[in-house]
C-alpha cells in the first residue's frame, strides 16, 4: 500500500516535473534559435510567459460552454498524471502500479479528446479544422505508440513501466534489433504527438500549417497558460518515456529521497541531449503538407509492427 514517505516522494517527482517541463521547452527553443543563427530567448522564457498569462483576464467567446472552461484543467490534470507514472527518477514510486503503458497511452488519448472537443466548442472554422486534424494525427499515432510499447513489453514480459526499466536497465546488456525499429517509430510518433515539425509547427499561426495552434486560438489568460503548461508537460512525459524505454540506465529502484536526488543530474543530462536532438531534427526537416502526415505516421506504424514481428520471429526463436 501507499506509505507517507512514498507519497511525499511521488509529490516531489510531480513537482519536479512541473518545474522541469517548461524548462525543457525553453531549452528546445534556445537550441533551435542557436541552430538557426538567431539570438535565443532566456531559458526561463516559458515561466515568464506563464506568469504573464495567469495575470491576464480570461476573454471567453460569448457562446463558450462549460466544457470549454473545464477542458484546460482536465488536460492539465491528465498530463500531471502522465508525468507522475512515467519513471523518471525512480522505478518504485507509489503511483507506478496505477497505470501501465496501455493506460499511459489512454491518458494521452483522454487529453486529446478533451482538447479536440474544446476546439469544436466555439464553432469557428479554425477550431473545427484543428480538432479534426488533431484527431487524424491522433488515430494514426496512437496505435503506433501502442505497438512500440508492445515491442518493449514483450522483451520485458510486462507492460508495467517500472518492470520494463528494471529488466532493460539492470539486466545484462543485450542488443535487441527490434528496439531499433521501435525507437525510430517512437521518434516519429513523438514528433507528431507533440505538434513538432514536420507534422505541425509550434511557431506559426498560418492557416494551412497549424494543428495544435488552431485548436487553442480561442483560449486566453489562465486557460491558455494551463494548456501551454500541459503541452510542455506532455513533451516532458514523452521524453521521459523515450528515456525509460530506450535509455533506461541510471534510474534507481530505491524509494529514499537521497537516491531520488542523486538521479536528478543524470536525468537533466539526458533531457538536455534529447532536447538538443529535437531542436536539430526540427531545424533539418521542413513542415510537410497535412496529407503527407498519414504517410509519415503510417510509416511509423509499420515500423512499430515490424519491430514486433522481428521480436517474435527472430529474437524469440531460441
Amino acid at each position: 500500500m501507499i506509505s507517507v514517505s512514498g507519497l511525499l516522494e511521488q509529490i516531489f517527482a510531480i513537482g519536479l516535473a512541473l518545474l522541469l517541463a517548461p524548462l525543457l521547452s525553453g531549452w528546445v527553443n534556445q537550441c533551435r534559435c542557436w541552430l538557426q543563427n538567431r539570438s535565443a530567448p532566456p531559458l526561463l522564457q516559458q515561466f515568464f510567459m506563464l506568469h504573464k498569462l495567469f495575470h491576464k483576464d480570461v476573454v471567453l467567446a460569448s457562446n463558450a460552454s462549460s466544457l470549454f472552461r473545464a477542458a484546460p484543467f482536465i488536460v492539465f490534470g491528465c498530463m500531471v498524471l502522465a508525468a507522475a507514472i512515467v519513471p523518471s527518477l525512480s522505478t518504485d514510486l507509489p503511483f507506478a502500479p496505477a497505470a501501465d503503458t496501455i493506460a499511459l497511452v489512454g491518458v494521452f488519448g483522454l487529453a486529446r479528446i478533451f482538447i479536440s472537443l474544446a476546439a469544436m466548442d466555439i464553432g469557428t472554422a479554425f477550431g473545427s479544422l484543428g480538432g479534426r486534424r488533431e484527431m487524424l494525427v491522433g488515430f494514426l499515432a496512437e496505435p503506433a505508440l501502442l505497438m512500440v510499447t508492445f515491442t518493449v513489453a514483450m522483451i520485458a514480459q510486462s507492460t508495467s513501466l517500472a518492470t520494463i526499466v528494471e529488466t532493460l536497465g539492470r539486466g545484462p546488456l543485450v542488443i535487441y534489433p527490434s528496439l531499433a525499429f521501435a525507437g525510430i517509430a517512437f521518434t516519429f510518433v513523438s514528433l507528431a504527438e507533440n505538434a513538432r515539425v514536420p507534422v505541425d509547427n509550434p511557431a506559426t499561426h498560418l492557416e494551412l500549417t497549424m494543428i495544435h495552434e488552431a485548436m487553442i486560438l480561442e483560449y486566453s489568460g489562465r486557460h491558455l497558460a494551463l494548456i501551454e503548461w500541459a503541452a510542455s508537460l506532455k513533451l516532458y512525459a514523452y521524453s521521459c518515456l523515450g528515456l525509460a524505454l530506450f535509455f533506461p540506465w541510471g534510474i534507481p529502484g530505491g524509494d529514499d529521497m537521497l537516491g531520488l536526488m542523486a538521479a536528478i543530474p543524470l536525468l537533466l543530462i539526458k533531457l538536455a541531449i534529447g532536447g538538443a536532438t529535437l531542436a536539430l531534427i526540427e531545424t533539418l526537416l521542413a513542415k510537410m503538407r497535412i496529407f503527407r502526415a498519414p504517410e509519415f505516421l503510417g510509416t511509423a506504424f509499420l515500423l512499430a509492427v515490424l519491430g514486433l514481428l522481428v521480436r517474435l520471429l527472430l529474437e524469440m526463436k531460441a
Partner: protein
Amino acid sequence: MNFPDLSEILRQFALDGLLGAIGMWLAIGVAGLTAPRSLGFIAKLLFPLGALVSLLAGFVALGSLGQPAQTAVLLIGLPDMPFHLRLDSLAAVFVLLLGFTSAGISVFAAGYFRQGEGTAPGLLCLQYHLFLASMLLVLLADDAYAFMVAWEAMALSSFFLVTTNHQHEEIRRAGYLYLLIAHVGAIAILLCFGVMAGGTGDYTFDAMRALPHTSFWASAAFLLALFGFGAKAGIVPMHVWLPEAHPAAPSPVSAMMSGVMLKTAVYGLLRVGFDLLHSSLGAATWWWGVVALAMGLTTALFGVLFATVQSDMKRLLAYSSIENIGLIFVAIGLAFIFHAYSMAVLAALAMTAVLYHCLSHAGFKSLLFLCTGSVLHATKERSLGKLGGLIGPMPWVAWLALIGVLASTGLPPLSGFVSEWLLLQSFLFSPGLPHPWLNMLVPIAAAVVALVAAMAGFAMVKFYGIIFLGQMREDALKDAHDAGPWEKAGLIWLAALGLLLGVLPASIIGHIDAATRELLGTGLADTMREHGWWMLAPISPERASYAPLVFLAVIASSVLLGRWLVRTLYHGRVRRTAAWDCGYFFQGPRAQDTAEGFSQPIRRIFEPMFRMQRHFPTARDVEPYYSVKVEDHFWYWLYLPVARSVDGVAKLIARLQGGRIAIYLMYSFLTLIILLLVARP
C-alpha cells in the same frame, strides 16, 4: 426480516424469481392492452413497473452468480416436449446485463413515448415487454425447442417495435430486411441444434453436452452457430440490417436492441461453443478461434470506418455497435485459441474481456442511443448536419452523453477501457503459442485492434462535437429543451453503470469470474483478490496493473488543486465577447465543419473501402452545391446479386404455373409415374 435472510431466499429461488419476472412482464404487457390509448396509465405506471421488475431480475442474477446451477421444467409447449430451463453463471451474467440495462431503458421510455407517434402506446407496451420476456427466456432456455421459440419471439417482437412508425416507406423496408436476415440466421441456428442433437431426437442441452461429436460434425455445428449468431450480432457480411433497423426504431428500442439483444447472440455463441461443444474442444479446434478472430477483426475495422463517415447520428451509433461486436468476437476467437492449446490463464483473460465488454457496451451504447432519443425529441432532427451547440439548451443530456462517449472510445477511467485493456493484455502475452503462423498473426491482429480503438475516438469526437458543441446550425435549435425527469433518471442510471464498471473493475470481475470458471475451468479472481479490490492485476502487478481509482483521484485532485491555486494566487476574472477566430469578422455557423467535412480525411485515406457518389460544384453553377453519398460495397457485391438470382429462380419456378387445368393434371400424372418408378419395392 434482516438482509442476509432475504439474499439467501433470493438465491434459493433465483430461477423461480426470474420466471416470475417473465410472468410480470407479460402481465404488464397485457395490462397495456386494456387501455391502449391512455398514455398516462401506460407511461407513468406500467413502464416504471417494468423497470422495477428488470432491476429485481438484475439483483437476482447478481445473487445467483457462482451458485450451483438451478433447473426447472415448465409444462408448456408441445405435449411430450416441455420447456427445460436452467440458470447457471453464464446465463446469470447475461441476465444481469439484461436486468440492469433494461431498467434504465424502461425508466427512460416512461418519459419518451408520446401520443400519436405510430403504434398506439398500449400495443407498444405489449411488444416492448414481450421483447424483454423473450430475451430473458432465451438466456434461461435449456433445450433447443424452448430456445428457438424464445429466439423467434424475440425476433418478431423486435420487428414490430422497429416498425413502430410504419407509415414511412424506408422504415418498412428496414423492418423487412431485419426480419429476413434474422430468419436466415435462425435457420442456421436450428440446423446447428439439429447437428448437435445428432439424430437422437433428444433436444435438451444436457443430451447435447453428453453426446460425443466427431470433429467434422462438431466443426459443422460451430460454423453454423457462428453464422447464425453472427447474423443476429451484425458480423460482416451479415451486418446490413443493423444500420437500417437501429435508426428506424424508436430510441429506447434501438438502445435495447443494440445494448441487450446483440448480446444474446454473443451468449448463444458462448453457450454453443464453450458449453455444448466443450467435449470437442481440443488442440484440433484451434482454427475455430482463428475464424472467429478474423471475422471479428474485419467487422471491427469495417464498423469503425463506416461509423466515422456517417451523417445520421443513429446510423453512426449503429456502425459503432458493429465495431464493438467485432471486438467481442476478436476476444472470443482468442479465448478459443488459448483454450485449444490449454493456456488456461490467457483463455480466462480473453473470456473476461468478452464478458466485460458485453457489460460495458450494453451500458454505454444504450446511454448514447437514449441521448440521441432526447436530442431527436428536442429538435426533430437526426441528421448531424442540422444540429450543433446543444450543450447550451441541453446541458444534462450533453454531459451524460460525454460519459457515454468517453466510455465508448475506450479511455480511462471509464468502462470501455477496462475491456480493451484486458483484450490487449491477452494479445500481449500470447507468444508461446505452439503454432508459428499464429504467433505472427496475433501481433498483427493486436495492431488492428489498436487502430480500431483509436479510430473509435475519431468517430465519437465527431458524434459529440457536431451534435452538442459549436454554433447551432439551424435557427430552430434555439427552442430545444432538456430531457424530462424520467428521461434524465434513465440516463443517469446508465451513466452511473458506466462509471462503476470503469472504476471498480476488480470487484466486478470478482463477480463475473464465476461464468469464466464455469466455461473454462479457470478464472482470474483468485490471483486478483491477492492484490486488493482497487487494483486490476490479472496475472501479477509486475506484469501489468491498472488502478482506475488512483487514476481518477490524481486527475481530479490536480484539476481541483490547480483551479484553487490559480484562483488564490492570481484571480478568477472572466470577460465575455465575440469569438476571436483570428480577427475574422463574418463568423457564421456555416463556417464550421459539417459531418461530411469532419470525416473527409478518413474518406480520403481509406477511399477504396467506400462506395462513394460525389457531386462537385463547378464555376458555372447557378446554385453550386457539394454532395457525397457513401455506401457499403457489400450491398452491391453480395446482397443485390443474391436478390437478383433469387428473383430469377423464382420467375423460372413461376413458369410451372400455366394457369390451365390440363397442365396441372399432367403434373400430377407425371409425379405419379415418377413415384411409381422410384418407389418400386
